[in-house]
């Protein structure tokens, strides 16, 4: 009955709409809306949860049956340049996914629609993970909707640890270093074995130590300018702790990033590493060894500065935004609402990540380390130019230099801070 009514309304409204506007075709709201909705998601969605995307579109189509939804998956390299080109050429998408660290620059340039008033429309918005919400907030206003999150915890092979007598995950820093020492001793003869795989350009492995020691990466002054604080005493202490773990447990190329950690573990040459749940799943996924599934477990990284504490993890992930130049902001909001509904967020959790809310978490015991980190996470400062700092690779090269011992921690961070501030405070 309701369907027939809607269908009749659609038919009638379409007739009037077409009669009235002759050409453009993208009109109306609600059930009589007709047109195209373009959504840009990253390739991760295509690989990890294509069904979630379909579910969202199906849900959206119930409300807007005549709007055609096109989801185009973007590669991470150059996707922002493509967005710039599309915005300039008048073909910007209606919904776009951006990584949490990419949001700042665009929010600072008024690229996205202000969603502060509509916040309540989105599911679970009162319990959004704070770090994710912060990444979508600029000058107190909301410009994006948290999509999914991801933290890091220690991933380890139970069999390798059991070989040296460690049968329960280390809960304190002392216990962790003890395990590292035991593993290194056992595998002394093998120069390619790492008790703890922790290379230099693994920036989200290094930065948490800074926050753990009470430091931060940058601080905003009263006048709005930023100070980079990698060289503050607390940050330096944190970085020295990081290096201590690397020196004790890692034997490999210190200039690389963490993307080969999982394969090293698969080859039996790494007993522990600190990374995302996606990397954990790779150990026993298609690119790994399925037989290892029962041997993999996680625990939260203990703090070197607080005896009973833990290192706060970086909350990464993505947000969904509506370009201000888009022509169908209402439809876009509706699609995002469907895509961040509890049922769909559950699919992200099932896919191994975190939902955008503290209310939907996994009960998978293998993910315990990750769930525990939700208690204390941080995100990067909402500086407009932080993304440019990342793109200049100053931070990554600073960490690589510290790791390869190209100077003292104090010297390297002081030099890097100066370079970072120039970029952060550029107009």
């Amino acid at each position, binding site marked *: 009955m309701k369907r027939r009514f809607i269908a009749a309304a659609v038919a009638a409204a379409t007739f009037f709409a077409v009669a009235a506007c002759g050409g453009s075709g993208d009109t109306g709201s609600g059930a009589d809306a007709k047109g195209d909705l373009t959504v840009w998601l990253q390739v991760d969605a295509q690989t990890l949860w294509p069904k979630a995307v379909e579910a969202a579109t199906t849900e959206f189509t119930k409300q807007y049956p005549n709007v055609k939804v096109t989801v185009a998956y973007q590669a991470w390299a150059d996707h*922002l340049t493509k967005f710039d080109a599309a915005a300039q050429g008048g073909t910007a998408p209606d919904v776009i996914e951006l990584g949490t660290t990419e949001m700042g620059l665009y929010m600072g*340039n008024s690229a996205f629609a202000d969603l502060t008033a509509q916040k309540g429309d989105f599911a679970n918005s009162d319990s959004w993970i704070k770090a994710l919400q912060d990444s979508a907030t600029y000058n107190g206003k909301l410009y994006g909707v948290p999509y999914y999150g991801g933290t890091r915890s220690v991933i380890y092979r139970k069999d390798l640890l059991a070989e040296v007598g460690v049968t329960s995950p280390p809960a304190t820093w002392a216990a962790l270093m003890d395990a590292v020492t035991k593993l290194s001793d056992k595998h002394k003869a093998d120069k390619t074995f790492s008790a703890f795989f922790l290379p230099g350009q693994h920036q989200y492995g290094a930065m948490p130590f800074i926050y753990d020691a009470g430091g931060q990466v940058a601080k905003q002054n009263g006048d709005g300018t930023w100070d980079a604080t990698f060289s503050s005493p607390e940050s330096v202490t944190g970085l020295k702790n990081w290096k201590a773990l690397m020196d004790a447990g890692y034997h490999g190329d210190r200039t690389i990033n963490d993307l080969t950690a999982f394969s090293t573990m698969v080859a039996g040459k790494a007993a522990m590493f600190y990374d995302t749940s996606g990397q954990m799943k790779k150990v026993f996924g298609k690119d790994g060894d399925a037989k290892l599934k029962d041997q993999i477990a996680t625990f939260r990284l203990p703090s070197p500065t607080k005896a009973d504490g833990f290192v706060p993890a970086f909350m990464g992930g993505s947000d969904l935004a509506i370009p201000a130049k888009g022509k169908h902001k209402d439809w876009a909001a509706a699609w995002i609402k469907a895509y961040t509904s509890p049922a769909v967020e559950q699919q992200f959790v099932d896919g191994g990540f975190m939902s955008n809310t503290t209310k939907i978490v996994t009960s998978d015991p293998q993910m315990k380390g990750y769930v525990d980190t939700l208690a204390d996470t941080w995100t990067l400062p909402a500086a407009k130019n932080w993304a*440019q700092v990342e*793109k*200049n690779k100053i931070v*990554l090269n600073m960490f690589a230099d510290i790791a390869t011992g190209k100077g003292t921690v104090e010297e390297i961070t002081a030099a890097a801070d100066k370079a970072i501030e120039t970029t952060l405070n550029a107009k």
Partner: protein
Amino acid sequence: MSILDEPAVAQPLRAPGSAPVSRRPRPRLPYLLILPAIVVLVAVIGFPLIRVVILSFQEWGLAQIFSDASPPFVGLDNYSRILSDPVFWTVVVRTLVLTAIMVSVSMVVGVGLALLMERVPAWVRGCITFSLVMAWAVPTFVSTQIFAWMTEQNFGILNYVLGLGQHNWYTDSRQGLTVATLIVVWGAVPFISITTYAALTQVPAELVEAARLDGAGGRQVFFGVTLPSIRPVLVIVTALSVIWDFSVFNQIWILRNGAPSPDYQTLAIYAYTQAYQGHEYGYASAVAVVTVLLLLAVMVFYIRQLVQIGDAE
């Protein structure tokens, strides 16, 4: 001086004694022949290039893109920003040195391989050409990854074969850039060899015979007959190699996991991290213009040669 030293005789537009029927449409013929090429090139590259030059004098970033403001002209600001950056000059020198090495090694190996291809049995030549074309067909982002694996510190096959233990090829940028050079040469030689070989097959056999009969040895034949004959092709192949190697990006970028340290930065990488990733397209366009001017400066002597071949009178 053989007849091959003379360029192809430029057809005079009013040749006496030629068939009068074709006299009237003839002046237009060369223009008609180049017209399709001109249309495509002007539309796809010509107009955009003009845009790039104009952009280089403007400030065009996210603020302008997202605010419908028209980008302000800032005169030479972008250029002075580039030229006053000390890192820029270091990067330029590094790029020039690297390009010189990459081009010379590629050309020597490539032409050498082409000459070898002339002298081997047909089946061996088939194997070589097949290998080369396959190597050529692999996109750089795949081939660089393969070389990265092969040179990995702990598990790479190169260390294994050379017995080097856990040697890190990348802490010293000179060694790392050598690996990058290897990747570039590996990818460039197929194009050079195959094109040069095609040119070699066109050297008229009877000229070689005549020179041999005159008592010329292998080297004299090469330098006196073969080289002049393939010179136009060699020259364009070298020019293209210079242009490509000057802009090498993927091989170094992917080799360094997308975060090359300052020692590894070439002009293309500098442009990318400073300009494109900062979404400052006016500044980026200025860098592109400076890149083209640098290339022109490097090749000015060469370009004269290129254009003069075929003009000598």
